[in-house]
């Protein structure tokens, strides 16, 4: 009797658990009538308020909801800035200080209960002024203030004024800022303190300046982070924090035609199949937050997400030795996209450190000691490129002959020679050097061990310090590290971002975390900062890069090359390095998606 009861209980438990899980309904079943884009996000979203975000994932989602004045052309390469909410490119005064921007008429904010009657109103020039003033407002604590610091006439004074306000509600946004005015409802005028050639790409094409309805800002208060009301093709349906975010097509979106012109090979690749059709194509976009690679990879193989990067552990499953797809991937009609990311990674030296800063042979010895080819082979399955300098290959000003200069050469013999010279400068044996790693995970531990192995091989002692990201940042920003592993990704297709990393006025906590100073470099930086794009500026960029490389403030290691996979039903997936608001271009071939289930059965 009792055995029977126990057995029955055990069976009931197992059946219940299996019955609960057994209903693994495929999302694609429910997508039969709607075009749904399904993606993974590898970290949680921090917020969807465009004025205060810098992280890639938040920008990815928010840029589908909110739009900027300008955007990058989806297909053309090199990257070309084109109007989005602006009617045309700005009219720039002869002294390069005044930008007059005409705004498209008939653009409406998404419907939301913050508006009277719930109907979104028309976008006006004042909305852009409001967006920029919010960034200047100290009570708002935007991460984007450095973008405008000292740039627009009267904006710094507005920031000073906000400091005197007691509470955020006390800030008067109707207060005039001389450099931000609306000529009329559809004309925005920006006056600069000094020429800022990157204004359009750095600020006006950046999500930070995307207008968000002021009615929403006032209505939702601090909860605006989860109630973005923009003008974009999609609107927020649900954001379950830490879990998923779902957008639906904005029924009031004005509609934009898919580009009719592209780069070479785009037509053959099918990127122009939808030319002239009105976007967006998808009805819904869902991002599921998946912080571990295994589930994301399995969901991709099951066809439950449309695209995926290749996790390191699954690389051999997906890619052959000849850098092509494996037969298993081809059988699933999976496609591979490769593209160079505008990023550079390095082992940086703190130039204020008494041991490293005064000893160029020591810094160069460390640089020569590292086998970058091996590093890329071990850590990135050989995918990345050796960084011979710091300007990423994607940039127009990338120096194609930089490799010949030999700054990234692996030469342990030369490194040992330089080390002897370094010891003479130091006046004896060099002390143990400390290397800060920006994390305690396995990647950072392996990287730390790798770098240590090569540096100690030439006769130096190194201690690797693994620390969490905030501690690491604090040490770097307070200029107390000796060597540090780091990297940067350009936010615009111009090398100015990279040059700024070596300008002495931007010492840590600014972007020059090497605390590097070279008067000649500084002089040239001040020159290029106010120069518009030209062959002369490109020449100066290359000259500046060589000046910095000669001083060796870092051992530059690699440029990232991204290998991304997608299912063949996921259309118009052309990699874009500055991918804001891309969901409107994407289309799902519903028939192919439906067929995948059958294909999976056959494979099994």
């Amino acid at each position: 009797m009792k055995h029977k009861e126990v057995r029955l209980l055990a069976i009931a438990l197992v059946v219940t658990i299996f019955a609960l899980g057994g209903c693994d309904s495929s999302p694609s079943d429910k997508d039969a009538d709607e075009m749904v884009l399904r993606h993974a996000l590898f970290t949680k979203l921090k917020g969807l308020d465009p004025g205060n975000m810098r992280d890639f994932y938040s920008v990815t989602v928010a840029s589908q909801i909110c739009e900027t004045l300008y955007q990058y052309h989806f297909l053309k390469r090199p990257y070309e800035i084109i109007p989005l909410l602006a009617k045309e490119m700005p009219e720039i005064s002869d002294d390069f200080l005044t930008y007059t921007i005409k705004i498209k008429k008939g653009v409406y904010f998404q419907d939301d209960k913050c508006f009277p009657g719930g109907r979104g109103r028309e976008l006006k020039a004042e909305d852009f002024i409001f967006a920029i003033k919010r960034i200047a407002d100290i009570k708002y604590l935007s991460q984007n203030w450095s973008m405008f610091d000292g740039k627009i006439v009267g904006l710094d004074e507005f920031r000073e004024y906000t400091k005197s306000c007691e509470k955020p509600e006390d800030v008067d946004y109707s207060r005039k800022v001389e450099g931000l005015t609306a000529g009329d409802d559809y004309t925005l005028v920006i006056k600069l303190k000094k020429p800022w050639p990157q204004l359009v790409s750095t600020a006006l094409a950046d999500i930070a300046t995307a207008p968000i309805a002021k009615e929403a800002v006032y209505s939702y208060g601090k909860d605006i982070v989860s109630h973005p009301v923009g003008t974009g093709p999609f609107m927020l349906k649900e954001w379950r924090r830490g879990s998923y975010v779902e957008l639906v097509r904005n029924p009031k979106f004005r509609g934009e035609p898919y580009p009719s012109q592209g780069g070479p090979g785009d037509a053959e690749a099918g990127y122009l199949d939808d030319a002239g059709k009105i976007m967006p194509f998808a009805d819904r976009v869902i991002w599921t937050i998946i912080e571990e690679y295994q589930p994301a990879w399995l969901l991709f193989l099951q066809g439950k997400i449309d695209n995926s990067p290749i996790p390191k552990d699954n690389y051999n499953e997906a890619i052959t030795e000849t850098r092509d797809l494996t037969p298993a991937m081809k059988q699933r009609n999976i496609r591979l996209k490769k593209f160079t990311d505008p990023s550079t990674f390095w082992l940086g030296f703190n130039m204020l450190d008494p041991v490293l800063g005064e000893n160029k042979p020591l810094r160069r010895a460390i640089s020569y000691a590292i086998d970058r080819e091996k590093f890329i082979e071990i850590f990135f399955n050989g995918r990345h490129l050796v960084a011979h300098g710091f300007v990423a290959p994607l940039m127009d000003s990338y120096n194609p002959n930089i490799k010949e200069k030999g700054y990234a050469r692996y030469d342990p013999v030369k490194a040992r020679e330089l080390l002897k010279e370094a010891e003479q400068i130091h006046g004896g044996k060099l002390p143990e050097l400390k290397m800060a790693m920006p994390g305690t995970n396995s990647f950072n531990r392996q990287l730390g061990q790798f770098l240590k192995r090569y540096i100690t091989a030439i006769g130096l002692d190194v201690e690797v310090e693994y620390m969490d990201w905030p501690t690491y940042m604090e040490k770097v920003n307070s200029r107390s590290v000796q060597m540090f592993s780091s990297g940067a990704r350009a936010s615009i297709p111009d090398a100015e971002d990279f040059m700024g990393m070596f300008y002495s006025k931007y010492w840590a906590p600014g972007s020059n975390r090497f605390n590097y100073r070279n008067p000649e470099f500084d002089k040239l930086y001040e020159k290029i900062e106010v120069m518009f794009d030209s062959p002369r500026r490109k020449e100066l960029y290359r000259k500046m890069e060589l000046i910095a490389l000669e001083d060796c403030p870092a051992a530059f290691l690699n440029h990232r090359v991204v290998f991304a996979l997608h299912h063949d039903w996921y259309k118009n997936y052309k990699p874009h390095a500055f991918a804001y608001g891309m969901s409107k271009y994407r289309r799902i071939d519903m028939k192919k998606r439906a067929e995948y289930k059958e294909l999976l059965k056959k494979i099994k």
Partner: protein
Amino acid sequence: MTAYIIRRLLYTIPIVFGVLLLTFVLFTLIGGDISLEIAGKGATQETIDDIRREYGLNKPLFLAWDSQFINHFKSALTFDFGRSRDRELIIDKIKRGVGPSLALTVPMFFCVVIISVSLALVVAFVRGSVWDTLAVFICVAGMSIPYLSFILFGQYFLAYKWGIFPVFFSPDLTMAQYVALPVLIGIVAGLGGNLRFYRTVMLDEMRSDYVRTAFAKGLNTRRVLFKHVLKNAMIPIITRVVLAIPFLFLGSLLLERFFGIPGLGHMMIEAIGSRDYFVINAMTYISAILFVLFNLITDICYSLVDPRISLE
């Protein structure tokens, strides 16, 4: 008993104060300044100073009515934890996360306790037999396998290969569907250690004189096991079970992360990683209160199951 409960509740005041002081010291004095991070890329020192002022980080740490510690203390006492670094109300965050966390940990925990106590009784009864040896072997093996391996194995085979469960959370699934596999994994992974513990407890009881006496008097096995052995083994069981209950609130980090369950375990670890002091403070404070409360419940339970224990 009422006087005892009141006295014990009063003891919680210094404990909670100690917890608040400790979290404050750890994250304010040792953890350092968060304004650098908030300031963002390329911020000037002036911007950083402005942020420090806005967050009240320029105020004295202790010795003032408006000090950082007094404000920290006030916010904890009023359960007004403010907003997290992502500007969401912390209390909303906790309310949202507690459901999924408990949906995962409660069934997992109680299934593990019921199964392991029941099995422990059985294996203790057949001690020394092949079944007992096999149970011990499986327990040790289960304890030796890393938790992550159970997760990876379960997710790959049960969900991906055989399609019995969903691989991951999806908005189209009900909570019961997406927690089923993690619960199953949690039960399997948790059985080894628990069964081994309860088996030891049961064996201690089985060797007692009263068990021999009961069998000698002709009581049947079921009555001896459930009426006498289980009742006498309740003290260590209660200690283990009741004191573990407050931790259920904290969820399960790995399971939540691998199956996309938006619970509190994951939130807590993320808050530590991003030095979201406000979230850590709230969670530590609530956990401390729950722990003290369940400690009291444990003591009360002792007196209920064992008449020799009285609360004074």
